[in-house]
């Protein structure tokens, strides 16, 4: 980094005024008997963006801190951060190479969509059962394994859709059986300390699934072949300037390059996401699930059986993790332990988005995907950029929790 001091001073500016805004703003709003739920977060982002230029008017005028105001503040902070980075390291690829930036952003969005899908399952389980499933990564692993075995060993040549359906059925069934046998007693009051019980029993399931799979399949990595190889195409035909496809890659406008397995995984994830949204918002059962997540007792009064919804939520959550794995088994080499980092990332995403919030989980996935892509692509030291990958999401999580302990879309307690 050529002018590290510029970047350092900008960071210091953001941190100082952000901290000042986050601490002082809620006190001023409280003194004036105003709504303070967003005051700390809003004050922090508004302070970090323009420092005294925005903080003093905010403290004097004390307008209602809306999501729009916070959004503008976040955009300004990101703008300031990017400008400082560009001034500090003018030769960085993220500054001088637009195609590189677009490719990194695309990679971030693509992987973020899949992270989001997986985290949705975890948050669905939490919002309805109040249980954090530590076996979520293992459902992801099983989804991939089943897809691999169907496409490569049991029914070679079969449509990947059949294999994905198989993964859905298997993970849903395991989730169903497990919930009925081990989680249902929690609701009946038979378990003295249900929270600890849930942690232990899902941990037990995680170990069991991991080692049982290893015993069945060995620990040698496997990988499914590309689900849908692209046809070789160039538009226009002579240059491919608009669109160029090889079996393994798609390049758009000579700038955005996405490998085939990632592209198809993201498309599959989007389809699944649309189906899930339709199910949750357009069907009676989906509405019942949401009702239970909002108020369990009120939902029961209206004739919804909360126990049935518990089983359905856990099975669906497991299936969503399985779907993510089924989509990604053509991208990564697959092992019985492949779910461990994926689960850790899902926990980060769920907390970042707000425990139990479906939009929060999806947005959290996108944020983590984008931050990881930006960090890996832009950190000047090539020997460290990718090594820090697990830390990028944690940094964002820490910042958000400092300013908004309930996460981005979490319910106020």
């Amino acid at each position: 980094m050529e002018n590290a001091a510029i970047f350092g001073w900008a960071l210091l500016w953001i941190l100082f005024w952000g901290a000042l805004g986050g601490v002082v703003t809620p006190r001023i709003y409280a003194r004036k008997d105003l709504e303070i739920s967003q005051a700390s977060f809003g004050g922090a982002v508004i302070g970090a963006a323009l420092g005294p230029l925005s903080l003093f008017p905010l403290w004097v005028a004390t307008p209602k801190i809306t999501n729009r105001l916070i959004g503008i503040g976040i955009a300004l902070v990101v703008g300031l951060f990017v400008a400082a980075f560009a001034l500090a390291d003018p030769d960085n690829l993220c500054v001088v190479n637009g195609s590189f930036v677009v490719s990194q952003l695309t990679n971030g969005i693509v992987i973020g969509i899949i992270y989001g899908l997986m985290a949705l399952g975890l948050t669905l389980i939490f919002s309805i059962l109040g249980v954090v499933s530590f076996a979520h990564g293992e459902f992801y692993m099983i989804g991939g394994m089943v897809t691999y075995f169907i496409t490569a060993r049991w029914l070679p040549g079969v449509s990947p859709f059949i294999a994905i359906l198989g993964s859905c059925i298997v993970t849903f069934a395991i989730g169903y059986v497990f919930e009925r046998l081990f989680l249902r007693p929690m609701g009946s009051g038979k378990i003295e300390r249900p929270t600890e019980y849930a942690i232990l029993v899902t941990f037990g399931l995680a170990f069991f699934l991991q080692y049982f799979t290893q015993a069945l399949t060995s620990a040698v990595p496997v990988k499914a072949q590309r689900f849908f190889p692209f046809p070789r195409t160039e538009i226009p035909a002579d240059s491919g300037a608009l669109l160029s496809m090889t079996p393994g890659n798609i390049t758009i406008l000579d700038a955005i390059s996405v490998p085939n397995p990632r592209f198809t995984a993201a498309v599959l994830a989007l389809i699944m996401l649309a189906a899930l949204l339709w199910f949750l918002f357009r069907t009676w059962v989906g509405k019942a699930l949401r009702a239970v997540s909002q108020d369990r007792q009120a939902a029961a009064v209206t004739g919804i059986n909360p126990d049935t919804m518990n089983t359905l939520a856990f099975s669906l959550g497991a299936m969503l993790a399985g779907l993510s794995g089924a989509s990604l088994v053509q991208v990564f080499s697959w092992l019985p332990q492949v779910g461990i980092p994926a689960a850790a990332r899902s926990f980060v995403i769920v907390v970042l988005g707000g425990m139990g919030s479906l939009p929060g989980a999806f947005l959290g996935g996108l944020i983590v995907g984008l931050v990881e892509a930006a960090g890996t692509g832009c950190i000047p030291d090539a020997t460290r950029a990718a090594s820090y990958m697990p830390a990028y999401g944690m940094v964002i999580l820490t910042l958000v929790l400092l300013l908004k302990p309930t996460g981005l879309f979490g319910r106020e307690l």
Partner: protein
Amino acid sequence: MAKSRTLVRIALFLALLALILTACGGQTETVGEPEAEAEPAAQEEAAPAATEAPAEEDDDMTMEPIKIGALAPLSAPGAVVGGEAMRDAMLIAADELNARGGILGRPVELIIVDTEGLPERGTAVVERLINQDGVVGIGGGYHSSVGVAAKEVARDNGVPIVFAETWNDTITSVQYDEIFRIAPLSSEVSAVDVKFIQWLRDENGMKLDKVVILTENTDYGIPAAENTTALLEGAGIDSVTFSVDIGTQDFAGIIERVKAESPDLIVTLATGEASYNFTQQAADAGIGPQDVPTMCNQVSLVSDAFWENVPDGNNCFVRRIGLPVQLYNDVAQALVAEYAERTGKDDIESYAMASYDSIMLIAQAIEDSGSTDPADIIDALENIEHMGALGPITFPVNRANTPEQAGVDPKWWHQFPDPAITIVQYQVEGQAAVDTTVVYPSTYQTGDPVIVGQE
């Protein structure tokens, strides 16, 4: 009804628990424990010499076994493919020893432990092997970071380890009495890599201005990348190193950066599944072995797993430790035959061969010393002349001939000096490792290199 449900739940929970315990327990494998009925049959079948042994020696085979420890990464994030190959070879060694009557007339019990490729796990399992299981020597070992950590435990307890596949120079350069190595030194491997790269440029007319190195941030990867970078610089070739965590899956961001460097050659020092993930994801992004000359990691020589995980991996150059197949000695040929029968693989990986030798070396040292005292075994190892699958193995730099006296770098302490290193290339999709073309050095060359991406 409720009662029966509870019973079902309890039964299922117990079954679950049993399976978990079985699975966790499976991380340690033992072979060769005395089995009164099975053993004489095995002796008769596999070793005619053993059947001629006096009756009292047969009785001795029911004595307390001599325990030898074995290190291998058998679960992620370790290089599981490599670990399983090493395990299979070490099991062959133990079976052979028992079939020929054991050591000093006592059966051999091989205790294989899973290091997971993690130093903290390596320390724990070596501690357990020595202080709980009571092994008299330890063989195997894949990851350098595990070797670096484990050597301290061995030193503290005075028990010898013969490392089979840990390359980090410091493992031997610290000059511990207990530590021996038959794997090559990382710095020597880097030297061969760079000589090969220079050869590509000077003898094959390949454009070679910039090399990208993908390494792992471990005790193997970092020094290996530093050595390679320094040697490349000496050869007038620029290089950029990208480092990742062991077990990294997603390389999309790094691959875009590698692409932006427009490398003339890519060297993959990352081991295990990470190397598969990187190579295939690079191929998907248009900078794979069929687009840019690529030196893939040696785990690529497990050809079945390689082609499944890296279907676009043709034209990979792979560093191969050990003599070419046509120069295998009798020990190696017998091992390859047995290994093929047990695993179905056509060729044996170099680290599997070295693992076999590491167990056999400890066995011979016990025989030579006539003792199971680790101190005596260390003395015997220093003076050993062992005909192994890797060739004649000795440790010429030792307490009687220190590095100062020998006028060599301390890294040669207790180091097998002659592991052969060749560079092979996959030149046909789906090719078995045994059929790869030896492209370097010229002494062993069986064909010309295919150099891709040259205009």
